[in-house]
């Protein structure tokens, strides 16, 4: 029986899930602790007044820096969650923004319009987002490949239209809906408390990475990796592909909704930008930039993308750029131009994403070393 090529999305550049292959080598004793070290460093960053000129506007502990970092961390987590679909299960969803937006708008509306306390709003939102993902996933997963991508895109598009239409004045339409902070815990309000939002974002990122890591390393994760390669075979082995894909889809949707809750707090409101298919596309960009199917790649990609997205506006209006001739300064003052170009270069030169840089550098180092030992 010959496989006929159907118009399907090819699986993303395959990477063996790191969780499924025990690590070896010199580093294998230290490596498990590296994430912990990174986490500790991230937790104490707000205590540092280290100025990083050119990288951030102010010292590390300034609210502006912490705010940017918090946004970056949330998107790092979001990208890691999206990778559960894209990199690890091979499902190309173009509608992931919907669940994130559901998280943001859900929290905002429940707090601002319904006046619920934050914890209730957050709980309801995450539950609701997860259920939404389960329901829509149950329908969308009847299709595969490009068709799946398009059905998810269609659902997300309906979400975007509903938000823009502003039914009943719930969403504020194109103007967005500022979050009413009067009922919020005092520790989350005000510029001086930005650090709490930062820690919240860090906690979210840690949660997502941990969940994705555990799930990928679990028996279910193994099935997901199998689904990425050959769905028919999974069926013949006695596993229901649909069920596993739905679990991955729902879980990723729930994680995105949780990210939405945090993001809503950080930004202090909701705006329709986040419902657009461009957000899903940028998630895809983040994952690929970092390295799909790898543990840290998507996180790095998400953080880097959001950092650039925020910082390039400042770069574009900086004196260094302004002083260039118009042919250069005009495009360079367009953040999207720089971001798009960087992205193309990244796809070109780091096909496995940032995560592949490490191994490559090692390879380079080895090939540069004279072959002394045998």
């Amino acid at each position, binding site marked *: *029986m010959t496989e006929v090529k159907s118009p399907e999305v090819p699986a993303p550049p395959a990477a063996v899930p790191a969780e499924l292959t025990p690590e070896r080598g010199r580093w294998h004793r230290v490596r498990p602790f590296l994430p912990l070290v990174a986490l500790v460093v991230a937790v104490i960053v707000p205590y540092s007044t280290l100025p990083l000129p050119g990288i951030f506007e102010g010292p590390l502990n300034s609210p502006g820096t912490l705010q940017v970092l918090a946004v970056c961390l949330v998107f790092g987590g979001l990208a890691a969650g999206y990778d559960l679909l894209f990199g690890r299960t091979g499902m190309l969803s173009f509608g992931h923004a919907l669940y994130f937006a559901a998280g943001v708008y859900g929290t905002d509306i429940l707090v601002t319009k319904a006046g619920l306390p934050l914890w209730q709003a957050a709980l309801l939102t995450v539950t609701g987002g997860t259920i939404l993902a389960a329901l829509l996933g149950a329908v969308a997963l009847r299709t595969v490949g490009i068709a799946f991508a398009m059905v998810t895109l269609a659902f997300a598009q309906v979400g975007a239209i509903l938000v823009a239409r502003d039914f009943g004045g719930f969403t504020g339409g194109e103007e967005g809906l500022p979050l009413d902070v009067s009922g919020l815990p005092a520790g989350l309000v005000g510029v001086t408390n930005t650090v709490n939002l930062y820690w919240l974002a860090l906690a979210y990122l840690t949660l997502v990475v941990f969940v994705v890591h555990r799930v990928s390393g679990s028996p279910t994760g*193994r099935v997901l990796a199998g689904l990425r*390669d050959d769905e*028919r075979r999974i069926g013949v082995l006695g596993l229901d592909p649909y069920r596993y894909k739905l679990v991955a889809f729902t879980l990723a949707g729930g994680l995105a909704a949780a990210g939405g809750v945090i993001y809503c707090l950080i930004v202090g409101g909701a705006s329709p930008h986040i419902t657009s298919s461009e957000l899903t596309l940028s998630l895809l960009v983040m994952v690929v930039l970092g390295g799909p199917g790898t543990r840290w790649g998507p996180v790095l990609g998400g953080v880097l993308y959001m950092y650039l997205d925020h910082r390039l506006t400042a770069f574009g209006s900086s004196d260094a750029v302004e002083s260039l001739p118009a042919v250069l300064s005009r495009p360079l003052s367009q953040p999207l131009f720089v971001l798009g170009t960087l992205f193309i270069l990244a796809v070109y030169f780091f096909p496995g994403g940032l995560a592949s840089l490490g191994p490559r550098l090692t390879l380079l180092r080895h090939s540069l070393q004279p072959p002394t030992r045998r």
Partner: protein
Amino acid sequence: MLATRGLTWRIGEVAIVDSVYLDLAPGEFLGVIGPNGAGKTSLFNLITGLRRATEGRITLDGQDIGALPPHRRARLGLGRTFQASSVFGSLSVRENVRLAVQAHRGGSMKLWRRAAADREVAAAADTALDRVGLAHRGTALAGTLAHGEKRKLEIALLLAGEPRVMLLDEPMAGVSAEDVPELVSVIKSLTGDSGRAVLMVEHHMDVILELADRIAVMHHGALLACDTPETVMANPTVQEAYLGESL
């Protein structure tokens, strides 16, 4: 234990599989031969549920499985290999087999347990790999295996699922002559115990003759004959339509 009753699959007007009546007893080894395009692979696809039959019934232990999706049939003990190797290319060889073992053992969703920690699964997987002689390739990515090695991996995946009825689609295709005896003995050992039944498509007549208790001959989708090897080989139609002149 496996039986098909008037199994038919049509595409348009053409019957690819044409009213096939088959019975497979426990412990039996049934070889399926037939010219290229006779519908052997299609028959397998119908039995395993990758295709829906247009007419007819399939029963396993008396239970009608004709309406079940592939994974439900697999859970009832139906396993198969593919004519064109279909392994999980981006997973290592060992991980491929572990996945198969796990599919066979744990039914429910396990999101939080560490897969690598399951020693039983690992041990069962290694046994299966050993049996087909791929143990030394355990860490290689399945996608980079040479053709013959992929065939062996296919069989290892099948073994891992411990099915009661096994459908082998040309397991020997592309396996180097040297490795054939080894694989034959692996396949032979499948039926030796415990009343497992095997349905095997194979063009290598000597392999079929060595292994099969009975041979079914397919031609143009229909079952031409189903009898002992001796009778089948003596059948003039079979000689003419399938075997042709000896080299």
